[in-house]
């Protein structure tokens, strides 16, 4: 999966350092109210699927301390695209 590289206003749970990076789905947590909607006092619907996405350190950092270790990030479905 590839994380969208976007700069949206509002409350975004996708950290800056992981935007635009490519990884794979490690686990599916389930469907949750959308925090980007809840942040403005709205109902959070429709629910969004939340994934645990894994990345190689070497794909995230310029100088990884342990290149074979993974970076694990919780990312909602609407921030993910299929990897090319």
């Amino acid at each position: 999966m590839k994380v969208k590289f976007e700069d949206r206003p509002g409350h975004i749970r996708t950290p800056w350092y992981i935007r635009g990076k490519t990884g794979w789905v490690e686990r599916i947590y389930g469907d949750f109210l959308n925090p980007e909607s809840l942040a403005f006092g709205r109902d959070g619907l429709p629910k969004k699927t939340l994934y645990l996405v894994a990345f190689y350190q070497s794909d995230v950092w310029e100088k990884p301390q342990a290149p074979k270790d993974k970076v694990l990030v919780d990312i909602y479905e609407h921030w993910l695209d299929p990897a090319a």
Partner: protein
Amino acid sequence: MARGHHDIGGLPGASEIDRADHELSDWEILADAVNQALGARGIKRTDEMRRAREEMDSEAYRTMAYYERWIASIETILIEKKILTKDEIDRRLAEFEKEWGEP
């Protein structure tokens, strides 16, 4: 494109995290209690509080301590939802300062 003042993961030059336990001040415990009470009453949600802190003036965000940011975001949300006005809060604050001195 600009990253938010809160979104600093992976930035070079960050100082090491102080992992030592430290005592909370009374006002910090109170800030947490107010926050939880407002949550229990369904007045605010965590994501609203986070959004309020992320929208703060960046200079203010950087100079405030953790629970100071909490208090600022509680104020923002209470005003936004018309539960309190800025005037009411400022007036009460002036009363406290008169009685207890400036913080």
